Structures are given as structure tokens and as C-alpha cells.
């Protein structure tokens, strides 16, 4: 009992340093992660849908370095061409709480890797897996669905709104309707 504060303190400190770890080489280097994520809690049969998460998500979205890399690649790979700075353009907004295809990091990785109907291209084979994870982690930070301490501060650029780290924590509501503007012409 006497050591409780000490243990607590070291736990806090250790959780802090993971956030700062800089992993440059994804491990294993060339593997593509297998994720099975349920979009709805419904499934055929008595049991719930089977899910498989690699556990990488936490590692990426709690790590400031990965998110900062993701922020850079977001621009490099022209994500902002459609999604702007998260507010959306010809693509849906990324900083709100609505996620057609799921707002967990695994969903987002899947969305980037596989593409989605109505215009989101597949980046499989175009963006290496670890960079997809980094971008997805950054996308999560846009609605501040990552820890504050890991979210990016302002960048050396023009700004229209507060930086990710200063946004209020967001929530994730899966599903929703594709807005008419983004629907394919019938």
C-alpha cells in the first residue's frame, strides 16, 4: 500500500513514454495487417460478429510521432484534395462524429486500403501499410479521438481553426447516410 503512489507514478510515466516511442521500421517489415471489424453488431446466428484486431491501432493512435507522420502524408498523398483539412469537400468530412464505414482506426485503415464506393480510391499497394496506419491515426486525431497529448499541435502554415490537439474530444457514431451531394448520379 505504501508503494501505491510510486507504482501509480511509474505507470503514468511508462504510459507516457510509449507515446514518444519512434518506431521507424514497421514490424514485420512487409506484412499487411489483417483486421476484421464489424460495422454493425448484427450477424447471422446466435453469436455476435467475429472480429479480429491486430492491436496496432492503439500503438499508432496514442503515439505522437506516428500521428505527426500521418499528418505529413495526409498532405503528401493528397488526401486534402477531397477531404480538405478534415472539413470535407468532394469527400466526406473527417473531423465530425459521423462515420459511414466505421470510425475506429481499423475501419479507417480498411477504408484507405480498400477504398469505398462513391469515389474513395483504394491505396493498397500505393501506400505502405505502416503509413496507412499513420494516416489513419492522424485522421482519428482530426475529430480528437486520440489522446490530447498525442494529437498534433499547429503546423507552420495558414490556419483556419484550432490545431487538432486543441479541439474538444470527439465521439464516433458509426453509420449514417451518404449526403445527396456525394451520391453517384442515378
Amino acid at each position: 500500500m505504501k508503494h501505491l503512489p510510486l507504482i501509480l507514478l511509474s505507470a503514468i510515466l511508462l504510459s507516457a513514454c510509449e507515446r514518444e516511442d519512434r518506431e521507424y521500421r514497421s514490424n514485420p517489415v512487409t506484412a499487411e495487417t489483417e483486421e476484421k471489424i464489424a460495422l454493425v453488431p448484427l450477424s447471422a446466428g446466435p453469436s455476435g460478429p467475429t472480429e479480429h484486431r491486430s492491436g496496432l491501432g492503439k500503438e499508432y493512435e496514442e503515439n505522437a510521432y506516428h500521428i505527426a507522420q500521418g499528418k505529413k502524408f495526409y498532405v503528401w498523398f493528397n488526401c486534402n484534395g477531397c477531404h480538405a483539412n478534415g472539413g470535407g469537400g468532394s469527400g466526406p468530412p473527417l473531423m465530425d462524429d459521423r462515420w459511414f464505414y466505421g470510425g475506429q482506426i481499423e475501419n479507417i485503415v480498411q477504408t484507405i486500403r480498400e477504398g469505398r464506393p462513391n469515389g474513395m480510391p483504394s491505396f493498397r499497394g500505393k501506400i505502405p501499410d505502416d503509413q496507412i496506419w499513420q494516416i489513419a491515426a492522424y485522421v482519428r486525431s482530426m475529430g480528437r479521438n486520440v489522446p490530447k497529448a498525442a494529437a498534433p499541435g499547429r503546423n507552420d502554415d495558414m490556419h483556419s481553426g484550432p490545431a487538432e490537439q486543441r479541439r474538444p474530444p470527439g465521439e464516433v457514431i458509426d453509420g449514417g447516410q451518404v449526403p445527396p451531394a456525394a451520391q453517384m448520379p442515378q
Partner: protein
Amino acid sequence: MTRTLTPHDVDAVPEPTRLATGERGGLPGVRSAADAPPSPDELRDDQVDGLELSARLAKTWGTDKGLIGALSTVDHKIIGRRYIVTAIIFLFLGGLSAVAMRLQLAQPENELIGPDLYNQLFTMHGTTMMFLFGVPIGEAFAVYLVPLMVGTRNIAFPRLNAFSYYVYLFGGAMIWVAFMLNIGPDVGWFAYVPLSGPEFSPGKRADFWAQMITFTEVAGIAVAISVIVTVFKLRAPGMTLDRIPLFVWAELVNSFVIVFALPAVVTASAMLILDRLVGTHFFNPAEGGDALLYQHLFWFFGHPEVYIIFLPATGWVSAIVVTFARRQAFGYIALVLSLIATGFLSFGLWVHHMFTAGLPQLGASFFTASSMLIAIPNGIQIFCWIATLWDGRPIFRTPLLFIIGFFFIFVAGGLSGIMLASVPLDSQVHDTFFVVAHFHYVLIGGNVFPLLAAVYYWFPKFTGRMMSERIGIWHFGLAFIGFNVAFFPMHITGLMGMPRRVYTYLPEMGWGNLNLISTIGAVIFFASFVLFLYNLASSARRGPMAGPNPWDAGTLEWAAASPPLPQNFDRIPVVTNREPLWANRDSLPVVTGLSVDNREQIVSTITHGRADLRESTPEPSIWPFIAAVATAILFIGSMFTPWAVVWGSLPLAVALIGWFWPKMSTEDER
């Protein structure tokens, strides 16, 4: 040992030793039957004598036992000792990180340390050496020695002084804990934006650096103020401006430089933190900020910083040269004036760190001239010291050896500094290992060698025991050889094109052999410090007893016991000469009339050192420690949320209220 003042001495002191007590109009200064004690139940130091006086004063000025007592102490010697020990621990930590870097650089494409750790290492090395060792060590010696040298019983604002130590300790501990957890800063000790800004330094690493600056600067300014007031107002009667020891002058000028320079870096680091955490745009060119603004602010502090590190060392050199040359300082006035000139000029040089930033040429060349000009006051000091030795009878003990080492190394570093002051030459050697070599010659030569001399010199005063002379000579030899082997080749590697802060280099660059030599030198240099540590530890326990004045020195600290009693002096000495112990070899004139049961000090006039008032100084208190803890909570909290500045001020307010709560004690009634 001591004698009371005779009329002859009174004549020797202009308007001496009258302790006015304000409205009472009493003059209890010189022992005199006419002076009635101000209150009958208060014992004064002319009513008791000898051991009883010592014991009673020691009780009045002592520190309580136990943890609370230790944390409450306001004794400048205890705080000073902690300061010195902590700063030297940081010196060793900084040294260890340097050895790790040197091992990595020993051969090209070495894979011992990766770039991430290497960047953290050199940032920690620079930060530790500059902020946690360089600035504090000079102030630490001031805290311990200035009150002794000016003949008073405690430093001015002793609680502020205690507070500053804890703030410094917490700041230093914070950044080293962060480093141990792999969140150490990795942006270099001057943390240029945009690299240290929010975009390119994600996470908390650079925040730790910036907040550590805040900690150490608060601590540094607090001590500087204490020192300034101590020197101005607490000098022993008769210590006119031209009788102030050179060491004290150096610390005084140094404290002024600190007070004026440190706010610039606090501003820079605060703006950096605001950019990083609140999203301001001070350094964001896209929104009208400017990356160069940071450099100007940083170096406006950063260049005086060099002198903040060097000025106390000139004090050590002066004290040691005079003692071991067995001759009073030659050119006292010149030395003091060059100290002051150095202090002023140090603020006019900062741009020479930015010659390659593309500033206007004419402006840059002005800073060439001012940078070279500072060679003049420094030259005067060097020449005066040499003259003192010339006309003296040098006694070659370890402290003097280190001072001779200081001359060899520091002068070389100062001269290579003249090359760096030239805009065109600097454009070639700036940010290369030539600069690394230059500033290690200046800083190790100008601060560490005098520091080692000072430790050997004052160790008997601190502990009552002498350090081993035999190990001392070995220590000096190893340190001198190791230093030069490590750093001289860096001049050449720099000219051969090796930039600083590279974690490795290609084999075809041809820098391998010189780097290997440097590494060997660094290991030898570090070994000399291990020897030093052994000498400290063994001498503290087994060294021969020193007595009050083992070196037969002339300044007042040697009149106190070794180690000094809590009250420093049983009776406050009267100063009739720059070297009081040489002028009054049999016994020192003293003044009497101070309370024995209360912490009373003499407050004197600034210029003439005339005794002016009796003033109580604060009792021990735990509040400075609590205030320091509250400050640490505020500073560390504000790295995570700006609101910490708001809620963090509550505990701080409580601590300050407790600190300044009226005590209703005798000191307030008077």
C-alpha cells in the same frame, strides 16, 4: 582569536561600525558602556563571550534535525552545499552523455547509438552543462561563499534562496527523468524553431526542454537577486566598494548579467511553449511569425550565458591566484572595471551566433567589432593575473596547477573565438567541430578548470578536511592531457568539414582517425573525473584536518571555522583592508551589539559599507519548499494543459500566503 575594536581601528574605518537602531536612536555598535541594551531580556553579543557565545549563536542560527528541518533550512551554507553537490552531479551526468557520444563517433558509420538517442544525448549534454551545471555552479559558490566573504551571517532573502534551490532541483530532475523514459528533448540545447516547434517535434520532448528552462531561470534569477542584495547591503562594516573581494565582485557582476539576460530566454521558451501548446504563431512565418525571432531572443540570452559561466570563474581565479602568489591582486581597480565592462559588452555580441542566417552585412560586421572588442577586458584580466603571479611567490599546490591549466586552455579558446567573431571566417567554421572545439576550450578552460581549482581550494572550508594533494596532481595531469587530446583535434575535424551534431559520418570523409583520438582523449578526461570523485569521497572522510585557514589566505571566509558554524562569525568582523586576514594577522577587529537570541544581521550602506541598521533575517521555514513543489506542479502541469496556469496558481497562492503570513514574532514587533 578576535579582539574588540580599538579607537585606532575606528579611525581606520571611515565612519565605522555604528549600528543605528532607527527610532531608538541607540548606538550599540562599538562596545560602549553608554549603550543600554534595547530590551532587557535580549542578550547581546557583548554580554557573553567565548564558547558560550559560539554555542548560543549556533543554536539561534542552527537548522533543526529531521526531514522537516532539513527541508526548512535557510542556512546559506547548507543550501549552497546542496547547490554545489547537485550541480556537480549534473556535471557528471552531462559528462557521461558526452562519453557515450564520443564512443559513437569513434569510428565512421558506427552503430552503437542510433540517431534518435544520439540527438537526445547531445541535447541533454548541452542543456545539462549550460543550464543545470554552468549557470548554477557559479551561483552555488556565491550562495556558499559570498556571505562568508562579505562577513555576514546569512544570505539576503534566505527563503527565496532555499526556494530557488528546490525549483532548480525539480527542473533538473524532471528533464533527466524524461530522458530516462525516452522522452528527452532531441532538438539541441538551443532548440531552434521550426525544428523544436509543434510541427516537427511532436510529443512532449521539446516541452520538457522549454519547461526546464523556465525552472532553471526562475531559480537563477532568485539567487542572483539574493546575491546582489547580499553584496550591496550585508557587507561587514568597513568593507567599502574597493575592499570587496574580487570573487564577490565577479559574482555581483554575474548576478546582474543573469538578471538582465535570463528574461530573454524565458521569453523565448515561453513563446515556444505557447506555439506548441496553445497554437500561437510567434515563430510561424505563414501566419506572420518569424523563425529568426527565436534565434535573436535565444542568443540575446545565449551570449551573456557564456559570461554567466565565465564570470564566477574569474572570481575563483582571482581568489586562488592571490592566495597562491602570496601577493595582493595587481590592478584591483582594472580587474573590477574589466569585470563590469565584460558584463556590459556581453549583451552586444549575440548576433555572432547568427552570422550565417543571412543578416545584413553591415549589421553583422558591427558584431564582429564588438565581439573582438571583448578581448580587451578579458586581456586586462589575464595580464593582471599574470602580473600578480610575476611579482608573487607562487606556491604550486593543486589549485594553482588547475589555474595554470586554465590559462593555457582558456587563452587558446579565447583566441579561436576571435576567428569566430569574423563574419567571413565564421561562414566556414560555424556549426562545425571547430566551434565545438572552440567553446569547449572556452567553457572547460574558462569554467571547469577554475572550478576544479576552486573545489580543491575551498574543500577544506566546506568540510574541514584537506583533499589529497597526490591524487590532485594526477587528476590535474590526466585532465589536462585528456582535455587537449579530446578537443584539439576537433579544430582540425571541423576545418575538414565535419558539422556538429552528426550522429555518424561516412568512412570516405577521412575524419575517422581524428575522431578516434578525440574519443580516447574524452575517455582519459572522464577518467580524471572518476579520480576526482574518489578524491572527494576519500578526503571527505579521511583527509587531514584543515583548520580555519589552511592556505593562509587573506579573505574573510577563512576567518570562520572549517566548516563554518551556523552563525559564520561569532562577532561580525570590521574590514580595514582588501585582505583582512593578511592585514590583521593576530586578531580581527569586530563589532558587537547584535542580538544573540535573534537572527540579527548588520545592514550597511552600499558604497562605504557603513553599518546602518540591525535587521532580523528570516527563520527557517518549510514554506519555500512547499512553494517550490507548487511551482513544479504548475510548470509541469502547464505542459499538458494551459489551464494548469489557472488551477496551478491556487496551491502556489496558498504556499505564498503561508510563506508571507505575519509571524507575530519579536522580529515583527520591533
